[in-house]
């Protein structure tokens, strides 16, 4: 292997492991060997972006693009650096346009393009970009949130609220919250085969939760049915049944099952969640949803999601001040909560605080794009294409 290759691989390996400083050092070493390698410049841009050093990231990514105008990871790093830095929306728009051409199916490029247009006060173009993103991926929550914010700016909260609800449904964090209440986390092990599950209640419930987590709802339902056949008053099984109904848009059934679970035991947080989520899906039941989510927020005070759910119910009741407090609490608990950030932006817009609202939208994008880890996908594709 050549010296250049070794340094590049070292830099890449260190970067993947999150060792920013040694990775930057290795990139510089690699550039001493060959300063015309766009991949290393793109990697350097990503590393600077990780540290939020935007001017350095812009310089490195621009150099990579100079060297190879098809370097998609460099476009991504450059666009994100412009957006996170702020105040350079014109350049940002150009970059996202380019990236959308280089990688046409990259949904994030369209979402970011829309946000850059919106920041530069070009709402029509922004809406067009977000619609394009939803055409590519109908389950892209950030595009939906942005459309809801745009609707709020134009027509007010009544029109925007369904958009926020829809975006919330697309957002996987709410399901994650249900499973965290049930004690199920992604530990990398696959859910068991329903045929292999031991015929006792705990094993069946545990397996049903894991299957539901993996979105194998029919197998989960089968196991839940077995539990409820033996004990119809098993509150936790009822709560999971309610969740499964919710996933199938059977809101009335979910509500009745959750109420039944609550009648059996009021101390089943999963049932409280399902009841609140069922109420929240019915526009006229925001008051009930707010009460239920209020109780859930008290029961699980250190998780951001119940505060977000409470805030969304309060938005429906037009109690913006209370909603703002709940959103602020959620952001305090989890600054990376995209849903809370967008909700907070909505409340701030109702208060006329446009620049603070804009900041919250930008922070949502910041955390969302950091979470996605798109750079490595584009990097690997680009590196694979070169080789």
């Amino acid at each position, binding site marked *: 292997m050549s010296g250049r290759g070794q340094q590049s691989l070292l830099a890449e390996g260190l970067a993947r492991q*999150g060792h*920013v*400083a040694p990775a*930057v*050092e290795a*990139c*510089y070493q690699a550039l001493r060997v060959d300063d015309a390698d766009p991949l290393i410049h793109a990697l350097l841009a990503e590393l600077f972006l990780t*540290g*939020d*050093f*935007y*001017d*350095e990231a812009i310089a490195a990514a621009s150099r990579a693009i100079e060297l190879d105008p098809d370097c998609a990871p460099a476009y991504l790093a450059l666009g994100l650096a412009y957006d*996170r*830095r*702020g*105040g*350079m*929306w*014109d*350049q940002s*728009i*150009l970059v996202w346009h380019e990236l959308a051409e280089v990688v046409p199916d990259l949904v994030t490029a369209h979402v970011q393009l829309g946000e850059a*247009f919106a920041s*530069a*006060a*070009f709402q029509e*173009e922004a809406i067009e970009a977000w619609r394009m993103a939803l055409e590519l991926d109908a389950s892209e929550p950030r595009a939906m949130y942005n459309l809801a914010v745009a609707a709020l700016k134009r027509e007010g909260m009544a029109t925007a609220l369904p958009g926020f609800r829809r975006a919330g449904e697309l957002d996987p964090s709410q399901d994650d919250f249900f499973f965290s209440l049930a004690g199920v986390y992604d530990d990398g092990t696959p859910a068991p085969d329903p045929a292999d599950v031991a015929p006792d209640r705990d094993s069946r419930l545990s397996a049903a939760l894991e299957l539901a987590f993996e979105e194998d709802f029919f197998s989960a339902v089968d196991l839940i049915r077995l539990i409820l056949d033996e004990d119809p008053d098993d509150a936790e099984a009822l709560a999971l049944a309610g969740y499964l109904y919710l996933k199938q848009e059977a809101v009335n059934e979910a509500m009745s099952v959750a109420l039944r679970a609550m009648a059996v035991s009021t101390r089943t947080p999963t049932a409280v969640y399902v009841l609140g989520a069922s109420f929240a899906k019915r526009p006229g039941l925001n008051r009930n949803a707010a009460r239920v989510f209020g109780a859930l927020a008290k029961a699980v005070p250190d998780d951001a999601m119940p505060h977000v759910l409470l805030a969304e119910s309060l938005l429906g009741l037009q109690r913006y001040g209370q909603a703002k407090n709940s959103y602020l609490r959620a*952001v*305090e*608990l*989890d*600054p990376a909560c995209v849903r809370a950030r967008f909700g907070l932006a909505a409340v701030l817009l109702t208060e*006329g605080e*446009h*620049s*603070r609202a*804009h*900041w919250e939208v930008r*922070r949502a994008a910041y955390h969302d794009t950091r979470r996605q880890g798109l750079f490595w996908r584009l990097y690997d594709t680009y590196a694979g294409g070169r080789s």
Partner: protein
Amino acid sequence: MATRKGGPRQPRERVAPAEKPAVPQTPRKEAPAAVAGSKQTAPAEVAAAPAPKPPRRNSLFPVGATIYPLDTETESWNDWYLRDQSEDLDAIGEARFALVRLLVSWKVLEPQVGQYDERAIDRLEDLIAAAREKKLQVIVCFFADDRHAELTEVPWGKKRDPRTDNYLVQREVALVQKLVARFRADPGVFAWQLANEAFCSGFETSSALEAWTRQLREAIRELDEERPITLGIDPEALFRATGVDARAAIDTCEFGVSHVTAAYRAYAAEGPITSGPSTYLDSFLLRTAGRGKPVLLDEVGVLSLDYSPGEEAAALRIALWSGLVNRGAGALVRRYRDLETERREPYFLDPFETLVGVTDGAGRPKPALGEMRTFVKTAARIDLRHFEPTPERTAVIMPAERYLPLPNLAGLFDPRSCLAAFIGAKEAHLPVTVAFETDDFSAYSVLLVPSAFELAEKTWERLAGFVQSGGSLLLSYGGGDANSAIREIFGIEFLGDAGPRSTLSCRVAQQEVLGTLDNFDVNIDVPNYALLSGGTATIVATDAKGSPLLTVNQVGQGRAIYLAAPVERAIAQGDPWATPAAVRKMMREVYGAVARAAGCGAPVTCDVPEVEVTLFQGETDDLVVLMNHAPEKVSANLTTDRRVSSVTDVRGGAPVAVGGTAFGVPIEANGAVALRLAYA
């Protein structure tokens, strides 16, 4: 002279346009004799005056604005100050400003080599005269670029670099001498500014900048030995932008400037401008620019047209008060009038920072101008000859590694960590400043070294001496191998770096040793964690697994406190607007407790961390200035060491009886309140 609060008073050095003895001055209404309570007041004069007039402005904190030569994006360089500026100067004079800055255009004044446009120079003379008539003084900036019309690019320069090309520099010297010779006797000129940030950012080395500065400075001094000269650049912001260390060049000038540039704000505190780190950035840069000389808070105000007029006003209010309470020598707003922009197209958004003034493009006042008027009126009643800010005996140390080039990342991380520490100290209500690793530490009792990667060997020796002789040192681990000196200074053994963690835990082992700490587990990305074993140090807090988090070691007459994680860096690199409250409280408590134990704690305690408290000490009474960094109204409860008989708003009104050591003060969102405290 000793003060009641302890510690020697630091001599005040200020830019005082009204008091320069060598330059003939227009008589000013706010002469010291008119200030109530001033010791210089002659009894006969007091008897003659029916009632002392309130001063019109604070002569030790002059406020002003830059009048830009062009008003619209469509104008070109030859429209330089073509519009009659008398309307603006009238309004500026009426608003009680003291300074205006005018930008010379080399391109206009010397259209051909050696041939000066006398009409343009007359225009400049008329402007200075008009300012003088309004009792304003002018800072003449020679090589200023407004980033729109290339005012410094002479067409005959043939694209040579005007900063380093010998011939062009000689032409610059000739221009400067021509102007100085013409205006040196003019009392309307307060100071000469060699260049602005836009021009200086073209320098590539510190030595080139220093050489250029010396040459221009000597050229001025040949003709004018008295007037202050400044370079017009913020050393920290310029270094960040260009990698050029301007400190040596600035040291040759009479006063410095601090300037929050758009790029620096994007780097250090990108976020809402009326809350969080943004609101401390002006004072932080003011402190870093302070190199034993007066520092003018330059180009204050918002940087883009994205904000509402209310936000513009609030941001300006914070900046102006920050300047006053952080020993600024005055303040200049970015520009008086908004730049009239062309209709925006997506690909032509202006990225520079010369857009926003305190009036709109037609000269109609915006709320920001009202804010400035209010500030000038209020600041006029704070007699800085009579009241001195509490001496800053706590310093945040900026490590020398900050000046190392890439790929060393310390230069990128350290200023942010220092800003986080500075904010922490402010939230603990400490009088705090920023010092550099190579500075003399003898003026300080407490040193905060936030998350530095590496300090020089000599610095470790100096820190050991500092602690031995009674100082308190708080150092947080910055990652990598720890220096062996930590064993001697902090009484701990470094076992290694446990690496990054996403949760910071605190379990209090010894309560009240470093303030009132709480147990917590919070989500915050901490890049490193030092594994320590006990030595002579007392373990004050540990993480969830019992590894020391905070230790205190008594060394000689001083104390050394070690924080096992780079918490300041974690705060700065995370979301500084959403730092977990428990972490903020821990830092506040620790900083406050260390300073208290060293005898330089908060002179006035306050229960709202977002309220910056500055105590100005007088002979018989004191003055407290409260600044609310939060965008919401707060009610601050203050506690003083002495029994306060009454408080009075410096703007006037009846004294309010207190009769105790505690009282509450409501403060508007981003508001400021100045109160005179009378003691029982």
